[in-house]
């Protein structure tokens, strides 16, 4: 057990954790030397240690990083302990974590120059009641991601808040075993985004005032791709009508304002019991990855998608045709009667000819009086055929529920 040299700002205490295991608690208060105090503590910490940041504003000029496993960084509340990076001079994140079994809780990261919290390549990471925010509202100058675990296994995001990210507020990428719950994403381009990931449960969240509420995406050319087994349920994705402010080049820059949920590529996605409404363009869109790639291992089409038991509010009354082609095509095909659910209908040519395998077909059932528009690729290309399916009952079928995501949350 080791301690830092005590200073005026650093007070060392002991916390009795479990039978025979002592753990050092370091308490750090805001000061002129806040960066050195915190960073030194993060480097010298030992597994089991707690770094406690007291109430107040910590002004940090350089990015913080943790690479010791089993450490907990805790504040005294997301609105009490504030790590401000408004004057950040170096480092691409507010906080970066690269060690296993880390818990982050009860603090907020403000105005990071890049991503707020990036966690890369770890097993077991908990974000509890953490807030990431850019305080000047939606702005392309804001950092890309708020909460940003990537290439990680066993990711828990619970009770968090993400505001103002110019890409995604809560973004989980190239990871597996993921739970995002009880959280709130507001005024981001994408509220919550699960990308190139396996086994994710996203539930009991609120996504509002974003450009798009909840995104389940898969992109080519990455170490982990072929996202699958994602459940999105019991969420409210409402009023996501903030103009897209993502800098161009980024995939979310193509998301039209007013989108509730988008599924792009991915397989085995179940969207159920959500409340989705008051979205200017469309409540749910299921689409193929539309850009060129020379990645032959990549499968660009969504498959085995199930949408059921959702409650829809008004949508499509003010479609955003300025971003991507989605809203434009949809508006044209629906002759202005925008549906709740849109599928671009794109499947491999072999499946257009011979039909889709049963287990890959989209199932849409029990969504009240929801409306639908699904493009029929052949009809779309031939002037004398019907270009789209409008009868939602054509997709009715028996739901095969996906398994719950579980892992030991008490690491």
């Amino acid at each position, binding site marked *: 057990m*080791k301690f830092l040299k005590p200073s005026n700002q650093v007070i060392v205490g002991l916390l009795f954790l479990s039978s025979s295991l002592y753990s050092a608690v370091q308490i750090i208060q805001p000061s002129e030397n806040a*960066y*050195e105090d915190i*960073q*030194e503590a*993060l*480097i*010298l910490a030992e597994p089991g240690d707690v770094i406690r940041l007291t109430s107040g504003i910590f002004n940090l*000029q*350089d*990015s913080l*990083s*943790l*690479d010791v496993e089993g450490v907990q960084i805790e504040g005294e509340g997301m609105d009490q302990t504030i790590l401000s990076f408004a004057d*950040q*001079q*170096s*480092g*691409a994140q507010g906080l*970066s974590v*690269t060690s296993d079994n880390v818990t982050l809780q009860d603090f907020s990261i403000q105005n*990071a*120059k*890049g*991503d707020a919290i990036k966690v*890369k*390549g770890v097993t077991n990471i908990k974000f509890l009641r953490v807030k990431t925010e850019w305080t000047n509202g939606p702005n*392309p*100058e*804001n*950092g*890309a*991601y708020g909460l*940003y675990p*990537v*290439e990680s296994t066993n990711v828990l995001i619970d009770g968090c808040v993400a505001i103002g*990210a*110019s*890409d995604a507020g809560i*973004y989980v*990428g*190239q990871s597996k075993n993921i739970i995002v719950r009880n959280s709130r994403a507001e005024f981001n381009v994408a509220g919550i985004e699960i990308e190139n990931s396996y086994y994710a449960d996203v539930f009991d969240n609120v996504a509002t005032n974003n450009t798009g509420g909840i995104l389940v995406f898969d*992109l080519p*050319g*990455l*170490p982990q791709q072929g996202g699958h087994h994602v459940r999105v349920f019991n969420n409210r994705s409402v009023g996501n009508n903030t103009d897209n402010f*993502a*800098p*161009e*080049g*980024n*995939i979310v820059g193509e998301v039209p304002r007013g989108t509730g949920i988008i599924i792009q590529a991915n397989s085995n996605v179940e969207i159920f019991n959500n409340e989705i409404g008051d979205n200017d363009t469309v409540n749910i869109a299921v689409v193929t990855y539309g*850009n*060129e*790639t*020379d*990645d032959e291992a990549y499968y660009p089409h969504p498959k085995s998608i199930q949408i059921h038991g959702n409650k829809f509010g008004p949508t499509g009354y003010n479609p955003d045709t300025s971003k991507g082609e989605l809203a434009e095509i949809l508006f044209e095909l629906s002759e202005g009667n925008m549906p709740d659910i849109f599928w671009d209908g794109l499947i491999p040519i072999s499946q257009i000819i011979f039909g889709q395998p049963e287990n890959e077909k989209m199932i849409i059932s029990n969504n009240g009086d929801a409306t639908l528009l699904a493009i029929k690729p052949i009809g779309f290309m031939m002037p004398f055929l019907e270009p789209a399916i409008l009868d939602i009952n054509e997709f009715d079928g028996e739901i095969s529920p996906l398994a719950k995501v579980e892992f030991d949350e008490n690491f």
Partner: protein
Amino acid sequence: MKIFKKSCLLIISLVFFTSQAHTSNTFDLADFSKAPRFLSEFGFFQDMQNQIPAKGVHPYSLVSPLFSDQTDKLRFVYVPEGQKLGYVKDKVFIFPVGSTLIKTFAYLNMSGPLEQQLLETRLLINTNTGWKAISYVWNEEQTDAKRAIAGATIPTSFLNSQGELLAVRYRAPNQNQCKECHQVNKVMTPIGPKARNMNKDLNYQSGEMNQLLYWAALGWIDQKLDSTPISSYTDLNASLDDRARAYLDINCGHCHIPGGSADTTGLYLNLIEENQEKLGIFKKPVAAGRASGNLKYSIVPGHSDDSIMLFRMKSLDPGIMMPESGRALADDAGIKLIKDWIDKL
């Protein structure tokens, strides 16, 4: 100079046969929190201020070095007596436990009447649990350097090669930032000393000699090396493509490599990458955010101004700039090289 084992802990003992009799330092390599507080305690230099190495510590230099805010870099290597290096083509030499790479970052200010300033000395020490990084920041008197766990900020100014005075907020990295670049698949590794990057002459006290032959003469290398030198990116006789790839390899390829800290992007810039999209050609950004600069692709052949790569090399904004750490200034020569390369692709 010896290394011996003591009750299962590796203890490094560096004893130098210089005029001074102290120079014996012992610390437990398995516990870096006990690393010496001052650089002088290692005894790597017989003259700290003038960076004259002690016996057994040898200077080295790289064909293509990393850009670090136009600092001059004084590199030394210590290998325990009687030990040998292992060689794998295209990889960093395998150094025996106890070896230390020593790199002093300085503004020597050779082009004008400004005194030289030693900024920091970084050590990479190969322990029995792998390489460990540690940085020592020089005091104002320039007599010794002190361990800087959280790194340090050194606001200063220096004379560039044209003799112009430039201000810089120089950052000595903290230990975690060392890992950002030096870690591949969670294992720390040196970056520079690959045979291809060492294959050049150096002025030793004993005269000029090829570095690999010098290491062979020291008994460190005892096999024939199958190594083609990397191009020096400053060598105008080399092809533009070779120079650009050499530059990207040493400045970017340690993170942008499968298993490196930037592998989440799928952009790979190490020398042996051949896939055009992975190299950035018409590759869309993944998680760049505003660092895309409203551009669509990492590299648009023939159009450097439309290429995110060049935009990020030029930037000084911490949320945009590449590399993410280790520089506060733009590398004008590197920018010109990559611009020319992209424009001629």
